[in-house]
């Protein structure tokens, strides 16, 4: 589960995105890796593009050092661009994505969209 800590899911460029994530009903020793990322992606008529603004991969000691019974907090300063956008041929959206890789090969993915900037209506 991902929870944005801001009052609204809209951030201005250079704001700091604060969020927390946690996983429940999973034993700590069954997690082999965790990936946390803040990404933008394009959707629409063209081939999808993906840009990674923030990426963190926890494995081994860093994974063992984390206490997964409490939410993990992350602070990420946001960039100037690309701003969230909804056009006719393309849409640019931002999201926080967390992937949990379990020892049995299962992959759990959660993502939480948010807006960067206020240009989100169709022009």
């Amino acid at each position, binding site marked *: 589960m991902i929870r944005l800590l801001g009052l609204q899911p809209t951030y*201005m*460029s*250079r704001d700091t995105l604060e969020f927390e994530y946690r996983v429940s009903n999973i034993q700590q020793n069954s997690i082999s890796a965790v*990936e946390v*990322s803040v*990404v933008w992606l*394009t959707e*629409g*008529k*063209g*081939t*999808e*593009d*993906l*840009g*990674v*603004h*923030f*990426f*963190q*991969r926890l494995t081994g000691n860093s994974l063992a050092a984390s206490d997964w019974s409490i939410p993990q907090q992350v602070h990420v*300063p*946001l*960039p*100037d*661009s*690309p*701003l969230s*956008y909804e*056009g*006719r*041929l*393309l849409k*640019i959206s931002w999201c926080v*994505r967390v*992937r949990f890789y379990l020892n049995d090969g299962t992959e759990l993915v959660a993502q939480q969209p948010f807006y960067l*900037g*206020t*240009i989100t*209506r169709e*022009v």
Partner: protein
Amino acid sequence: MSGWWFVGSLGEALFFASFFLVGVMCFTTLVAWQFVSPTTGVRIGYGFWLLTTVTASFIVMGAVGFWYRVLKVATSDEHREVIAKHGLVSRPNKPHNRNLLPPMVPLLTPFTDSPGAKLAFRLPGEWPGTGALISIGLFAMAWNAMMVVFSVFAVGGFLEGKVQIRLLMLLIPGIYVGLRAGQLFFRSYVQEIGIGSTTVEIEDLPLVPGKTYKLLLVQYGRLIIKKLSIRLVCEEESTYHFGTDVRTECEIVRSQNILDQGRSRIDWGRPLELECQVTLPLDAMHSFQSLHNAIHWKIIVEGEANRWPSYSRSFPVVVYPHARSNPVSQPL
């Protein structure tokens, strides 16, 4: 990829692995023959180097293909993107440098390297017809050159008393196509040079939403303009795969009229100069460029002139996000 993606990826990885192994085996054999037992090997010359290049390309293609497929299965999209950007060794997330250029916005350098005569920058122009003109010119040149060669053969045969009917049957439509291509090229060329060049100068770059900028349009040539208009447009561009084709689609999503000019006379040495102002809407999206998608802003000049076909010339500009009102570290 159709079918079960895992089997497909595994199959591709195995294919590239075998490609790599075949390449290594052939390369090793070739080098061993050459240097261990030079009497039985391939003599050094073009043949040896050609075989070396081919086998080395097998190794490179196999290795790259194999690791690309493996990474595609073993890593997430985000992780792959990070590896592509920073390499396999992970680095700590650095704090965001405020002085860097805004990400995914086109570089400003191509737009600011030409100073204007009256305003700060002279914008580079995009001529939509230039590509077609060059293509027609190249085609006309190549085709007519080919026809000249065939004609020489035909005349040579005729002088020797042999009339080559098949060659003549080929030459008659061929020469017609060559003449039409030449005519089309020269007509397009005269249109291009006859209307005269258009330049646009702007007070400042990059453009920022909510701000107003002075603009200067100079239209050269010797003609009577019936109508001339300047527009600021925002265009979305998407590239996608359609079967085996790669297609690009563009759509103007925003258009703002800047100036409309009525009938004017332009003469050599007395170009038409029009000054105007352009204000970017506060809610304008910034310029954006990714691998397959883009948002472009352009100043488009459209004109209609007496005895000439209507024309359109476009001048791309860069729009920065609103927050970046002070481009502090623009590398020029």
